[in-house]
């Protein structure tokens, strides 16, 4: 798999974001081009949580950043709230930014160590002139309460005084400050302990319900994704492999790569050791991806057709799309 196509798009839905044929390439020296994201299309319907899953280097973080035009993609379209972002000028793009926010992977380094928490949260409010000092102070207290931090205790502290989980709560509060429509969460719990992971995942769910958010949740861990997402998109080497609701994806896996990801999740049960047997090795270089289906070099079902022809996304069950010439049969 790892193919192209738009069969999974929902043009009739109440879409917040529509991404079509997005391509991001980085130039490395003279003739070297890293093809990070190659012709990815998807959409986000209001109120849903789309999880984007894949290994390091599959382009999932680049995809998230390209949506925010950080940097602008090489080609393709990003339509956010009926505005085409790729052609906007600097000023117009800036005006769109409050509605689309991001939460980063490393909660400690994404906060300024010199600023007290109250300043971290006040800064966006002041830049966007959201009220006077009294209103801003009230908003800061509301945000901190929302993420279960006691404003009286934390307001004047700096990021180095907090644990990773608390820093991630502050990052979430900061992302919420300007009442965004959409938040892109880039591996928000990967750097946290399992016990803290669950707290942050629950908090994200609560915030989504409370503020009516639409989320894009980038992760390499299918088990984490299962609890929070309404739709999962599996990526490999800059292409989309499979798109489905989480229950359908795990119970009726069609893509060989998705199956390998599912099998690799460690299960806390000594009777069920994890299996690395489905795929071996690591992804090939994105500078020189394989022809046809990009997964074919590690795929147990690869045939000549896979080298010659790139598979397109097609619907195999209601809401379940796969880009593979030889999907897994029951």
């Amino acid at each position, binding site marked *: 798999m790892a193919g192209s196509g738009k069969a999974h798009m929902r043009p009739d839905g109440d879409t917040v974001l529509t991404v079509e044929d997005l391509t991001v390439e980085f130039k490395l020296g003279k003739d070297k081009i890293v093809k990070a994201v190659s012709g990815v299309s998807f959409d986000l319907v209001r109120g849903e949580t789309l999880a984007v899953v894949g290994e390091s280097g599959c382009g999932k973080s680049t995809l998230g950043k390209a949506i925010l035009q950080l940097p602008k993609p090489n080609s393709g379209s990003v339509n956010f709230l009926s505005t085409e972002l790729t052609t906007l000028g600097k000023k117009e793009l800036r005006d769109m930014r409050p509605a689309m926010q991001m939460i980063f992977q490393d909660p400690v380094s994404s906060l300024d160590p010199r600023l007290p928490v109250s300043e971290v949260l006040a800064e966006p409010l002041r830049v966007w002139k959201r009220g006077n000092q009294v209103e801003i102070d009230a908003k800061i207290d509301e945000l901190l309460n929302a993420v279960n931090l006691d404003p009286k205790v934390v307001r004047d502290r700096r990021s180095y005084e907090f644990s990773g989980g608390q820093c991630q709560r502050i990052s979430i509060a900061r992302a919420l400050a300007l009442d965004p429509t959409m938040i892109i969460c880039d591996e928000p719990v990967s750097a946290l302990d399992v016990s803290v992971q669950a707290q942050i995942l629950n908090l994200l769910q609560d915030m989504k319900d409370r503020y009516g958010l639409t989320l894009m949740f980038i992760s390499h861990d299918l088990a984490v994704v299962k609890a929070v997402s309404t739709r999962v998109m599996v990526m490999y080497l800059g292409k989309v492999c499979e798109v489905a609701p989480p229950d359908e994806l795990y119970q009726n896996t069609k893509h060989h790569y998705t199956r390998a990801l599912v099998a690799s999740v460690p299960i806390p049960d000594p009777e069920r050791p994890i299996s690395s047997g489905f795929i071996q090795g*690591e992804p090939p270089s994105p500078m020189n991806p394989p022809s046809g289906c990009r997964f074919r070099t590690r795929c147990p079902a690869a045939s000549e057709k896979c080298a010659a022809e790139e598979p397109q996304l097609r619907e195999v069950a209601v809401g379940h799309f796969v880009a593979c010439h030889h999907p897994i049969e029951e």
Partner: protein
Amino acid sequence: MSSLLKIDGMSVTFATPRGNLRAVNDVTIELLQGESLGVVGESGSGKTVLSRATMGLLPGTATRTGTITYNGKVISELPKDEVRELWGTGMAMIFQDPMTALNPVRRIGSQLTESLTVRLGMDKKAAKLKAIELLKRVRIPDPESMLRKFPYQLSGGMRQRIMIAIAVSCEPELLFADEPTTALDVTVQAQVLDLITELRKESNMAMILVTHDLGVVAGHTDKIAVMYAGDVVEYAPTRQLFSNMKMPYTEALLKSIPRLETPTGSRLPVIEGRLPDPTKNEPGCPFANRCPYVQDKCRAEKPPLKDAGNNHFYRCWFPIGGEK
């Protein structure tokens, strides 16, 4: 099988501006030859300090008490340079972060042959051949060209394989693996764990696997020590631990792991609250404030390590399933 490592009543404290920080409290653990032990706990539970203290890799601000017996010899009182003699050939360590543990300005070949020439006294040519063989053992394709590469040219999974190759190069009897897969993708994590298990079986190497993830230790260890706030709170053979868990903390840790079976949109069980301040010595069970089964006795008196039979020990007044 004979005893390889015995840690008896080990405590580690660090001198800090806020007072003495107790990182490890009176831990007793025994490991047989070829056996694997998982040490599990949250950040700050003392699991990394335990493994570093055993190897003698503590900073100057730390004080260690208790005895460590390695292959029948007490090593805790040995001077530093004699402990050093054990590194590589006796005990070796794989560190958590493969990005920073390798020297960025030296080629893989020179980092890999260093311990071979220094420890085993090989000449350059023999060391190079051995290095190639080691790279093959950790399944690195085209090992000869790998020797000339720098760490930045490799992926995280490849770097961790190099770290493993360096750690096993002098065929240690005991391998410490400190969160060896935390920085890696799940698919690569599965491969690296399988690789470590295979290497262990080939040479009957014992292992202490330190991790925060019960899912990682479940399939790869013979027994498990669960740590909380510097104490070993539950210590049992792996199957016994999962089938007959006694500690509420172990149960909470297990429940908080996201699983594929988790219904979509459901709330995950969490462990509320935080670890107690390690510089304060408060009475009672350190887990009392976060425990769902807490009773008055737990806040007043710290529970001792109790024996549940079948080599299963726990530290709780009101264990799950009662006293036996």
